[in-house]
């Protein structure tokens, strides 16, 4: 299907695809097995300028938007969704600065992120604050010209590897959701530590750790926007980043389908390739159709954001829900088509199934997404 990409977007997609096929595919199983962070691949992505696709040119990027971010995430995820998170997680960490950062903050942090010299991460989740983000406990107390951060963030993507962290913390407990603020915290800041690396079902090449703040002194100039804006920043960040999760899901689904198709063409049973059996053909047809629909919805949401739409919360959530549910279904079906081989770790398909699951969970579970979709639909209907 032709999505009418610009010349630069075609260039970006093709280069990301080349890196995925030539550099990531051969090492995907290795990083999945060892759970190491794929720094050599991050270096390749940095040298290729891909870290800067969604960052404005005046900050050293290529001037694209969420659509460009999605194209890269999708292609990389086709090879390994875990490695792709080094890129996508950095995007999540950078979006608050892009959306709400001061000119000074943008100049300070974005050029290094665009060059891939520093990875970024976004810290909101805590042990008792997942879907209910309003119950976060990490505090930030103003003291002179600094804020003192205390608390523990959980399951933070890129934690320990990234150097720039955007952190949501409570500055005024009495104000509830309006008492949260967003800060930029640099890795070497005293009082900032990392917990052990989590062992996960999938996306095992991605680093997930706790981020622990103990009397961590952050300069007041690192406050994003102003006090009390934390939750608005977080919500808007997710509205912008969710098409990226959708793109990751589309990439996973496409990668799984590619393997299933190749296997179906070459696997002979009863004297013929299993792709000649209608039972298999119909599975492949559904997988292909669902992926294309997910891709179209993802790109549409991304483009809506890039066009400057006032709110794309509903469309972002729709893309995330549909693409992640598709990825899960397609990956399960791909394992089914490969049969026993699909279940073996020697073959790449079971990894897609393990990797797909997280896309239904993180950056807002699919249940939370459906809440967002319905709430927006109802709100729109009242306005009519």
């Amino acid at each position, binding site marked *: 299907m032709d999505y009418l990409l610009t010349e*630069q977007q075609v260039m970006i997609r093709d280069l990301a695809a080349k890196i995925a096929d030539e*550099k990531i595919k051969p090492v995907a199983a290795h990083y999945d097995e060892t759970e190491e962070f794929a720094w050599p691949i991050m270096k390749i992505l940095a040298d290729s*300028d891909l870290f800067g696709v969604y960052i404005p040119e005046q900050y050293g990027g290529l001037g694209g938007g969420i659509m460009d971010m999605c194209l890269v995430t999708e292609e990389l995820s086709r090879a390994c969704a875990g490695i792709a998170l080094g890129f996508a997680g950095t995007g999540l960490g950078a979006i608050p600065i892009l959306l709400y950062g001061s000119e000074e903050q943008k100049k300070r942090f974005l050029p290094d992120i665009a060059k891939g010299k520093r990875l970024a991460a976004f810290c909101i989740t805590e042990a008792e604050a997942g879907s209910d983000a309003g119950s976060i406990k990490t505090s930030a107390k103003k003291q002179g010209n600094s804020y003192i951060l205390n608390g523990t963030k959980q399951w933070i993507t890129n934690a320990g590897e990234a150097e720039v962290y955007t952190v949501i913390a409570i500055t005024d407990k009495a104000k509830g959701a309006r008492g949260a603020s967003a800060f930029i915290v640099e890795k070497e800041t005293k009082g900032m530590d990392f917990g052990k690396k989590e062992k996960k079902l999938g996306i095992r090449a991605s680093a997930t750790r706790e981020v622990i703040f103990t009397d961590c002194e952050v300069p007041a100039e690192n406050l994003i926007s102003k006090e009390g804006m934390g939750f608005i920043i977080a919500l808007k960040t997710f509205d912008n980043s969710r098409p990226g999760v959708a793109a990751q899901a589309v990439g996973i689904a496409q990668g799984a389908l590619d393997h299933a198709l190749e296997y179906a063409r070459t696997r002979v049973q009863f004297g013929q390739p299993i792709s000649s059996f209608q039972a298999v053909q119909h599975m492949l047809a559904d997988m292909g159709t669902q992926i294309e629909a997910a891709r179209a919805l993802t790109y549409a949401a991304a483009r809506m954001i890039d066009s400057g739409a006032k709110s794309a919360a509903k469309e972002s959530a729709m893309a995330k829900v549909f693409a992640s549910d598709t990825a899960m279904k397609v990956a399960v079906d791909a394992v089914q088509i490969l049969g026993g081989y699909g279940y073996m770790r020697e073959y790449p398909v079971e990894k897609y199934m393990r990797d797909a699951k997280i896309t239904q969970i993180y950056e807002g579970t699919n249940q939370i997404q459906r809440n967002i979709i319905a709430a927006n639909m109802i709100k729109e209907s009242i306005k009519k």
Partner: protein
Amino acid sequence: MNIIVCIKQVPNTTDVRIDPVTNTLIREGVESVINPFDAYAIEEGVRLKERFGGKVTVITMGPPQAETALREAISLGVDEAVLLSDRKFAGSDTWATSYTLSAAIRKIGAFDLIICGKQASDGDTAQVGPGISAHLDIPQVTYVKKIEDISANAARVERMTEEGYDIVETPLPCLLTVVKEINTPRLPSIKGMMRAKSAKPVKWTACDIEADAGSMGLDGSPTRVIKIFTPAPRKGGEILKGGTEYVSKELVELLKDIVIH
């Protein structure tokens, strides 16, 4: 450090087909790429520039579409590109090609280093690099697998041999041909690709490089290709079976036959 890298556009296939009438390569219907060995030459040139400053100029002789190879080189970090294209160059053998390239390099002027791939994947001669150094009367080191040290006027390099490697010191300017062990070529960057898109390679004809008419193209080529053919595949060997004594006797007899013939 000013570096010149010579590249060739070749068919992207290991299955090279030859026109049985003209004895030349059939290029129709085959995608063209930078000769794989030249990719290592480009990478080494760009790495040296990144370390020591200066610029990398890439040069190729070929039909107008060879410009694609030059643009690709620019996307990989090369600064300037020169295309030598003229009907008068057609039919050049390795002597005439290296003469033509050397004439263009003279026109470019000051350089510290010329880097070539060890050979092209289509012709496989490995003669053009050494030919250029002969025409320019500068030292050459072939099959370089590592540049150990390089200064303003000398280089120490490792030259691959069948058994291992030699360490060779050479004054600059000189010409190196490189093997694939020397580096891992990078992928292009998006900014490099955008620069390549808008770049305008310099285009020179025979007239521009003041080449001697008798030294280029088919007329300037001393090589005459009489026949090109694919050697018949080797027949499988013969396996002698039986006891040690029988086999060794048989073998001796067979060897005797070979010696007698």
